[in-house]
């Protein structure tokens, strides 16, 4: 009886201890029979992550968070991960802490840092320590959403204050004006559309003309090509060159003539000016010519003189000896 009691009591005690110890280790995530190693990562903040949370690579659980502690100087948080040593990690490995679900549990995921360039990982000072970043938890998001909702409420209050009866009337008028403007715009667009139709037709016609011109040009170019091939163009160019040279000499002569003509014009102009002054003076009765033109007495005397001169000439002609005497020696 005593031996039986000893056995049973010992069995119960051992069973109780084994159940407690191994049950605790198993529930903590210990992987019996696997090689594990510890990896350290640093974070500026770890959110709701705590010891015992899962560590994952590509969504597969490979270990658990073993320790979370604030650095002695308080600059960052050190997190020790206990992970399966056989699982390869990316060369630029980093650790992202994030909620595992909506119900409060968190996870640490070992990722390639290059996949998340916008995450502000905390860079460690030691090479063996991984950089870490913690996503904002639901409470922070909720707090942010709360602030946004407060701002929206404030904004809606302001809108409510600003939206008075007068504003409503103004808005109604504005809407009516907009409707009027819209009608006018519609009409304008219709007119523009008609104009565009005409323009399009003309453009089409012009395009046709251009096409025909292009065809003609092509024909001309073909002819020109033929002419160039036969040497006629060269002859033509030689003739044109001769003509050009002739034109050039003609131009030079014309230029000379023009300059002389200009000089002559200048002289003529001065002559005309002098004549004009003489005529003016004559009209004013200055000088002999003036007096001759303006004084009828002189004219009459001249005419009388001319008459007597004519009588004298007739007398001379009739009686030469009266006036001329020829003697030799």
């Amino acid at each position, binding site marked *: 009886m*005593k031996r039986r*009691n*000893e056995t*049973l*009591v010992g069995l*119960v*005690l051992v*069973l*109780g*201890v084994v*159940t*407690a110890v191994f*049950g*605790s280790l198993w*529930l*903590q*995530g210990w992987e019996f029979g696997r090689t594990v190693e510890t990896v350290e990562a640093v974070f500026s903040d770890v959110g709701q992550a705590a*010891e*015992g949370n899962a560590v994952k690579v590509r969504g597969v659980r490979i270990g658990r968070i073993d320790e979370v502690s604030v650095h002695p100087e308080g600059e960052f948080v050190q997190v020790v991960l206990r992970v399966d040593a056989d699982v390869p990690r990316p060369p630029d490995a980093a650790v992202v802490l994030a909620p595992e*679900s909506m*119900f409060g*549990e968190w996870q640490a995921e070992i990722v390639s840092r290059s996949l998340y360039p916008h995450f502000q990982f905390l860079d460690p000072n030691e090479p063996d320590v991984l950089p870490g970043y913690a996503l904002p938890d639901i409470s922070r998001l909720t707090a942010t959403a709360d602030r946004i909702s407060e701002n929206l409420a404030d904004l809606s209050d302001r809108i409510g204050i600003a939206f008075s009866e007068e504003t409503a009337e103004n808005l109604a008028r504005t809407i009516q004006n907009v409707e009027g403007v819209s009608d006018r715009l519609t009409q304008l667009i219709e007119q523009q559309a008609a104009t565009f139709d005409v323009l399009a037709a003309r453009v089409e016609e012009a395009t046709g003309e251009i096409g025909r011109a292009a065809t003609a040009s092509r024909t001309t170019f073909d002819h020109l090509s033929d002419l160039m091939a036969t040497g006629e163009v060269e002859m033509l160019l030689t003739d044109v060159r001769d003509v050009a040279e002739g034109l050039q000499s003609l131009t030079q002569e014309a230029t000379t003539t023009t300059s002389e003509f200009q000089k002559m014009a200048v002289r003529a102009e001065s002559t005309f000016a002098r004549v004009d002054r003489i005529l003016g003076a004559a009209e004013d009765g200055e000088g002999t010519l003036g007096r001759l033109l303006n004084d009828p007495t002189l004219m009459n005397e001249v005419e009388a003189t001319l008459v007597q001169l004519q009588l004298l000439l007739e007398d001379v002609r009739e009686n030469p000896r009266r006036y001329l005497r020829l003697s030799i020696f």
Partner: protein
Amino acid sequence: MTTRLLAPFTWLGSHGLSMTQGLGNWGSLITDTVRALRHVDVWGRLLLPQLARIGVDSIPIALFIATFTGIVLALQASYTFTGAIPLYFVGVLVGKTMIMELGPVLTGLALAGRIGANVAAEIGSMKVTEQIDALETLAYPPNAYLVVPRVLAGVIMFPAVTILAIGMGITSGWVTSLQLLDMSTPQFVRGLTLFFFPFDVWFAIIKATSFGLVVTLVGCFYGFHTTGGAEGVGRSTTKAVVVSSMLILVLDAFWAVLLL
């Protein structure tokens, strides 16, 4: 007239004296028990039978209670979590509740009924039949002979039985989840491990140890203070069960306030 006016004071004084006497008796029992620890030659050979009686013999009832508690917990959790909460939270609820609360408390209450009554009745019978006086006459320290082996057995075996009960409760909850709730083992295990902390097990062990101490001490106390023959033994037994059950619940709240 004067007697009526003084009645409240008389009641107060009477109960005050009674309480003080009770505290004194408790202090005396505890002091004598601690002193009796040095009589290892007396209680050492009596410890093993008490370990067997208090621990091994209590396992069936503890496992029975834990089994059905685990089943009910799993079913109630799935009933509660239907909808928005994922079903793997059944594992969370079964694990957390069994480890931290129902495992220790239900085992403690069950053992309070079984062990507390047993101890009170046994010692009470010895008291009313003057066997304890005989022990003293034979120079046997009664606390070393009667109290220390039972209290030590309670303190040692209650945690062991509670751990086994917790294991059984979680196992029955797991089997229930597989068979009745269309859950898979990974789902249940995920929930089980999700919010587990090693402290949870320490919390259960601390509570179970304190429950074992209280249940055995209360049984011994009422057994030692049994008067009035067989009827008195019955009263002591009842008192032992009631008081130890109450103290288990008080201690449950006390540890929760102190440690959580």
